[in-house]
């Protein structure tokens, strides 16, 4: 399941870009591969991350996986609901399962992301 209008990474993160703000989460494919998500280690608000830098950790019964930042920016808000109900990522990864919002400090990093069409093709090739 891929949503139009979002940007995607090869590591299966999505970013919803609005001006210089991005909301970030992991894709349907990612949550499906991870299985039941049991814990999310959220980043600290104010954390500055480069594109592809480590942003958060999503832990399932199978593995603990890094979530890499789709853009270069600073964390402005985190979804603290995930602390008590991490399964929201499984249930609704593109809405209630968002992980954090970021202020994009290097807008050009968006150009490195895939749109929904490209990501869909990328998934087919896996």
């Amino acid at each position: 399941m891929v949503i139009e209008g979002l940007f995607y990474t090869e590591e299966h993160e999505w970013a919803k870009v609005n001006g210089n703000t991005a909301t970030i989460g992991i894709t349907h494919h990612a949550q499906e591969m991870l299985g039941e998500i049991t814990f999310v280690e959220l980043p600290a608000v104010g954390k500055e991350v480069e594109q592809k830098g480590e942003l958060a950790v999503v832990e399932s019964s199978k593995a603990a996986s890094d979530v890499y930042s789709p853009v270069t920016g600073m964390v402005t808000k985190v979804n603290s609901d995930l602390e008590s109900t991490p399964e929201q990522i499984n249930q609704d990864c593109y809405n209630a399962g968002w992980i954090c919002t970021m202020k994009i400090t290097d807008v050009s990093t968006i150009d490195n992301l895939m749109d929904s069409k490209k990501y869909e093709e990328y998934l087919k090739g896996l």
Partner: protein
Amino acid sequence: MSFISNTKEQQKDMLADIGSTIDDLFSDIPAELMTDEFNLPKGLTEQQVRGALAEIADKNYINLTCFLGGGFYDHFIPAAVYSVISRSEFYTAYTPYQPELSQGTLQAIYEYQSAICRLTEMEVANASLYDGGTAIYEAMMMALRVTGRNKVIVDDSVNPIYRVMIDSYTKNLSIQLEQVECTDGQANRREIFKKLDNDTAAVILQNPNFFGCIDDFSDIADAVHKKGALMIVSCYPISLGILKTPGAMGADIVVGEGQSLGMPMSFGGPYLGFMSSRMKYVRKMPGRIVGKTNDRLGRRSFVLTLQAREQHIRRDKATSNICSNEALCALTAHVYLSLMGKEGLRETAQLCADKASYAYHKLTAIPGVKPRFKAKWFFNEFVLDLPCEAADVIARLIEKGFAAGFPLSRYYENMENAILICVTEKRTKQQIGMLAEALETCL
């Protein structure tokens, strides 16, 4: 494991199968490191080997009356401990692969964890680590993960062997280690508070400390928490039968050497590192943790939990490169604690303290023998200043049948005449009297 034969014929078959030679298989080893000669003596018969080994073993002094402590202690071990742990169902050094198949082993580890939590008054314990030294290192790394900081303050009355281990583990990491010299056998508050700042991840303390002195670190815990840092306390589990627990002092991570809980003193191991912490830090805790749950039919069952952070899944990002536990030693500690019970442990600790106090008075009555520290609060170990070099006196006392203590000059400056003496519940009034007599003649 069953025997797998490996005859010349089979080797030839295998090599033919992979199309290689023995030399090819070792070709990665540089030629200068290869040798045909190992300078080994000629072979001996089995009887000759036994004789030679017995001769070497006889060089050990095995029947000394032990007043030696310093991190490892000569406590009584009930025979029932061995009977239980040597049952074949339990007899494994590690957590088994496919652990959930071994419900009994997991239940034992779960009960061990519960015992460690109650003993230290903490909320969660892991399935054990290698020994007291690695446990303290792991606690330090855990504090760095929790706080995201990299300065650590270590009191120098923490067991010097542990401090050497911390040093060697962290030599190539960018961790700022600050050592604080203790004052009159107690943690030096003024120096610790001076060094404590917003970059500090942890303060590492020990109770009773290496000199046997006891302390209450509650005030340090308050100061440490105000700076957002963690307090790590290493402790001697037997002492917790009567002493204020690290949990009650406000420690965030408690570690220690578990040898005193039913394991003999035996040339460095195998020993047991234990670790407990606050529930809020459980995901930063190294090693494995056994949890209790219900299976799909609602039956009680035990599982390895939070495994996702271990090395076999998370590789270089694992919480620790210790990926197993000291299962058999943890079981030993658990069986020992179960046999002793709450009352037994309290009594043992009280006996140690009372007998040590008796020995302290007896020995300090010897002319020229003085207590090293003004403060008289100790558990079952204390430091005495002798009128001459302690190491020489200890050597002379070995000839008289005593392991009289530990020469502190081995690890501390300006302590040439200082001896660390330990008294456990096993020592009798008579033995203490005999040590006092022998010591007087050896000065």
